[in-house]
């Protein structure tokens, strides 16, 4: 029966593939459309880390502080630009909002953009704006647009072949608006080989590359051994060669290699020395204390998220050290929680800045100490900013989603609660960006909008891609037409923030 199981055109006998390289698919569909004549871009960075401040991070409360108005009953929202005083940073002329003292110390390692402006899409929605930020395209699209990480995974492949090229930390998939969130965390039409390796809980990351819960490493090895022996005796395997089977075995080999490789240790946070761990977690060293966060509105969620983001940064550092290509760490969008401050903006920002300040600064310093910062591009961004009054842009307002009283009598109305798209902060450190540089200018008085050097998503992506050695005009073929990695191929790298001049493409 077996010899006639499948028809092949050649009399090949199967050789078990064992030397396959992770992620390397010979055929490479969808087809990459290179100009052919596009000059090769020398990458300034080999790794990319995105620190995603999901939910709309208010610029005047973080990296672009304005006049401070302390809380007092009876003040008007119109008078409130910042609810924190400002602090100096390591760079003259750049001040941050109070609460970011650690990050202030490493401002001299990178560039701050204050003029990022987002699209409005007719109505401010986190799901759509996150989609647009991560894919460069506003949804809906006629095809499933790939995430930035998937483009990099497909174009550059993994750095260390034992690690998935696209790792996504901190994002759960059963919160928020359900499927809408997942719509952008995908490889889209590039194919699921380039999709994210998801680690929703960094403190449990080791599990992602360990045997399934409840299975000892010994048993796992045993299972693998049994499987190989059974495979070797399997009659179907003896006859003919067939690509589906080969790709399955190759995938199984690759997965097994990942699970066994020394690089897998990078996932295990318990291997990090306590003194270092502490710097990322605000002092908590017992990881089991950072429990699975429950979605509540009483602050307990934020507290456990605080630790979670910091751990995500630590995990990102360990993975970068081990040679991961693309890592995203998110503070996670949960409706009305984290950065999505529809009320209690001031109080919540105290928590949020606490959540990010020490870990991010430590991440930058750790990378620098290990000699990795120069070749790692770290980008902090959010889908849009916030303001106490303006929804959208001053000249182009969109529907209000938050009630704002005329006077503030309760601290819950004190803060930036509406969605503002006419300014925004992006920080970039390392890989090819200028050090201690400020790009863009915003107004000192309301509306605190961009006045100079506006940055839009396709140019930000073009900059990131360029620094990674990818042309902003690169396209992939889908349904017989080109799909560009920056919107319609229009992205232009932002020369002003780059340490070396951009060569004309």
């Amino acid at each position, binding site marked *: *029966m077996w010899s*006639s*199981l*499948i*028809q092949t*055109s050649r009399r090949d006998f199967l050789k078990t593939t064992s030397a396959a390289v992770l992620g390397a698919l010979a055929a490479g*569909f969808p087809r990459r459309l290179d*100009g052919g*004549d596009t000059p090769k871009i020398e990458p300034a960075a080999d790794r990319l880390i995105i620190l995603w401040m999901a939910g709309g991070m208010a610029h005047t409360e973080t990296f672009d502080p304005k006049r401070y108005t302390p809380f007092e009953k009876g003040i008007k929202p119109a008078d409130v630009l910042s609810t924190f005083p400002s602090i100096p940073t390591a760079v003259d002329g750049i001040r941050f909002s109070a609460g970011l003292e650690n990050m202030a110390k490493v401002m001299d390692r990178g560039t701050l953009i204050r003029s990022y402006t987002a699209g409005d899409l*007719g109505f401010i*929605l986190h*799901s759509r704006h996150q989609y647009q930020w991560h894919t460069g395209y*506003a949804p*809906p699209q*006629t095809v499933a647009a790939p995430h930035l990480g998937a483009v990099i995974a497909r174009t550059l492949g993994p750095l260390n072949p034992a690690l*998935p090229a696209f790792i996504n930390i901190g994002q759960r998939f059963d919160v928020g608006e*359900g*499927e*809408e969130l997942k*719509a952008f965390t995908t490889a889209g039409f590039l194919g*699921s*080989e380039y*999709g994210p*390796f998801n680690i929703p809980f960094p403190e449990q990351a080791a*599990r*992602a*590359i360990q*045997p*399934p*819960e*409840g*299975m000892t490493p010994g*048993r796992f090895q*045993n*299972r693998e051994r*049994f*499987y190989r*022996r*059974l*495979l070797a005796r*399997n009659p*179907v*395997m003896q006859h*003919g*060669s067939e*690509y*589906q*089977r080969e*790709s*399955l075995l*190759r*995938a*199984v080999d690759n*997965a*097994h290699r*990942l*699970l066994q490789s020394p690089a897998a240790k990078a996932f295990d946070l318990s291997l990090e020395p306590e003194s270092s761990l502490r710097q990322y977690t605000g002092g908590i060293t017992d990881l089991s204390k950072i429990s699975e966060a429950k979605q509540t509105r009483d602050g307990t969620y934020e507290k456990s998220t605080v630790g979670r983001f910091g751990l995500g940064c630590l995990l990102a550092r360990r993975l970068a050290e081990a040679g991961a290509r693309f890592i995203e760490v998110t503070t996670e969008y949960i409706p009305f929680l984290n950065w999505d401050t529809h009320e209690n903006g001031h109080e919540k920002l105290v928590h949020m800045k606490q959540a990010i300040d020490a870990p991010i600064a430590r991440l930058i310093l750790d990378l620098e100490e290990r000699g990795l910062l120069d070749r790692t591009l770290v980008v902090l961004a959010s889908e849009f900013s916030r303001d106490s009054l303006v929804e959208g842009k001053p000249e182009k307002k969109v529907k209000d989603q938050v009630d704002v009283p005329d006077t503030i009598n309760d601290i819950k109305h004190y803060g930036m609660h509406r969605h503002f798209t006419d300014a925004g902060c992006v920080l970039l450190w390392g890989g090819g960006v200028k050090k201690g540089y400020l790009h863009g200018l915003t107004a000192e008085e309301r509306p605190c909008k961009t006045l100079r050097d506006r940055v839009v998503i396709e140019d930000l992506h073009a900059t990131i891609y360029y620094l990674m050695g990818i042309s902003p005009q690169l396209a992939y073929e889908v*349904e*017989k*037409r080109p799909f560009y990695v920056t919107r319609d191929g229009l992205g232009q790298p932002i020369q002003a923030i780059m340490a070396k001049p951009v060569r004309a493409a």
Partner: protein
Amino acid sequence: MVWAALSPEQRQQLPPPAAGKVDFTKDIQPILQISCAQCHGRGKDKGGFKIDTREDFLRGGDSGPAARPGDSAGSLVIEMVSGLDPDNIMPKKGKRLTPQQVGLLRAWIDQGMEWPKEITFARQPLHNLHPRRVEPPPPTPRSGAHPVDRWLEDYYAKHGVAPVAVAPDRVWARRVYLDVLGVLPTPEELEAFVADRRSDKRVRLVQRLLQDNHRYAEHWLSFWNDLLRNDYKGTGYIDGGRKQITAWLYSALVTNMPYDRMVRQLLNPPPEAEGFLKGIVWRGAVNSSQTPAMQAAQNVSQVFMGVNLKCASCHDSFINDYTLAGTYALANVFSEEPLEIFECDKPTGRKAGYAFLYPELGTLTPSTNRQERLREVAALMTSERNGRLPRTLVNRLWARFFGRGLVEPVDDMDAPAWHPELLDWLAEDFVAHGYDIKHLMTTIMTSRAYQRPAVAGAEAPEAHYVFRGPLVRRLTAEQFRDVLGEITGVGYTSPQPTVDWLLPEPSELQTQRLQQVTVLQWTNTLETATNRWMSWFVREWVLASPPAEAQAVLAANVEWKLYINGKAVGDTRPAATPVVVDLAPHLRGGLNVLAMRVGKKPEKPPVETNRSVAAWVRLKTEGTVWALDTKREWKLVHAGTNDWGSLPAVEEWQMLSTHATSSEARWLNERQFAAAVHSLERWGRYRAAWVAADSLAVALNRPNREQVCTGRPSQATTLQALELANGKALSALLRQGAEELKARFPHAPETLIRTVYRHALGRAPTAGEWAVIREYFKENKGREGIEDFLWSIAMLPEFQMIY
């Protein structure tokens, strides 16, 4: 005649001709396709110049002949593409040619302009459009009587496809069960089939499987969900911007609704089918190519006619001959008001009329009444003049069963099939039998072609495909889950949608189930002064131990939320819709309290209100299944709180005995409720098609149905393998499965092994496999041993592939 007008100095600056022999197909055709054909090919001839054929090219246009073979420097085309003459630069649109490309063209011209005759840039004729009656060649001893095989006989001869014995019974039976029902034959079913001596047993098996209406519908639900973009959760639902068609779809599949009627109901929909045309109404502003009416035009063309209008939704298409105006004319049919045409998202101030995609099939009356337009387009789509409609579905099903369509890609139905007569005949036969989908499936699956041994496929789409039989395929995400579920007895415990599961059942059973529905009702005035606007319906009972299985069907007349033992389970549910809930994770030994919190805070004091619930609970403990219904022992308390913990003391709760008959409770869809009860009584477990995607399904390529999906990638990926190696979903399934198997075969491990093999792989282990397995089980006993054994089977290519 105007020859090239470059000066001698300018000619010096021309890029030199490329070295070596130029290959037209590889070097020249792409340049002409990308840089010239848009204006000078495919029916266009700007400047009077066509590049359809070599003769057209040489003839040139208004400016004279385009080229002089042998003299590239003196050829007009080279002058223009070189860019040296600022008044004459080509192409006018798009990127200029690079010096390398100019060099290739020069070399080509100097070498005599070789041009294979079959290559043309002319407008392609449309294939597969008009119906065509064809008669199959007469039967031969080799082909047999089946028309499909008779058609293929010549093809085989022409392409050197040798005759081959059909796939053996065990292999073929496994294939056909998976293809028709998405499950494996049980060991008993398989042995019975193998032992059957009748010469027509294969035909009989196909027919018998197709009559298993419920399992057929469950399996094909996923195919149609992908195609019609139907899902249970996802973008658009949060604010009513999307609507499911699941109930309609299940009914259509269970009753084998003729395809043309399905299409008419999707295009001119009753309420339960309108979700398809509605598409996804996104919040906020969308690109003008993605408004609901444009989505409808794209989806209707792709799904029913197999063509891609997405390119032509922003501009005239570069890859086919569809125009922007044409797409808008179709979209206008579905739109409330005629749409303004936007080109590349910019308004043009123009509007298109109303037109069907292929005017040769018929015209539409420009009616301002949308209902009339939908009726007309539905009639046009399913008219006997439309030979594309049946061919598109025939092709999709052929691709399902054979791994590759007669036309490939399946959404390029304007292109010719590799066997046009076969496609045409299958389509006509399909129509002649009333668009009966099961008849079509029977026709295909009873052919010898479908019985041929599976063919090893190629990783990349090959240029010169030759049909030799079905390609080796892979289990879909749902099949993988379902077959493992069948082998172990583990399935999902609650479905996402509720549909009419009673439909395939005999009427006595339907009546019986309807009688199982009882409703608890309470009517009175609620006092908002005391703030008691929530009604809590509570049922308590004692269990000796946590139940093995526990599910409930619940519904209430206003929005409600479920609490078990004080904990909220799931979100707030909408009014009236019966919901199947898995209770087991929340129940314990001892006292259990189930509460339905019914109501929501009113805007102003209600004068009178009624609160009503229907509840039916099924528990399985110590092997016994028993049911709790709404007939007795429910209590009611009112409170103004969402919080279980702050309810009034138990003494204040009143025993509730006011029952309504289900017909008095007009809010309840008792048929739906009874159907849900039936699904629990009859199966208790649900197949993968009924639940929303989990990480295992996504890893195995179940698509996000924001876009139409006409084919899933089947190749394995590393992330998939990781998910299979240690993902929670598969581990949980295997653990539970191992426990079930252990309970079934407590003292007979070899029987267990043999049964798993026979079910999963359709055969007994070989001697070599037995040796490995016995050695393994010596050391690895108990549930864990079985678990890991199951995993290894699940990871065998023999298991995951469909041969």
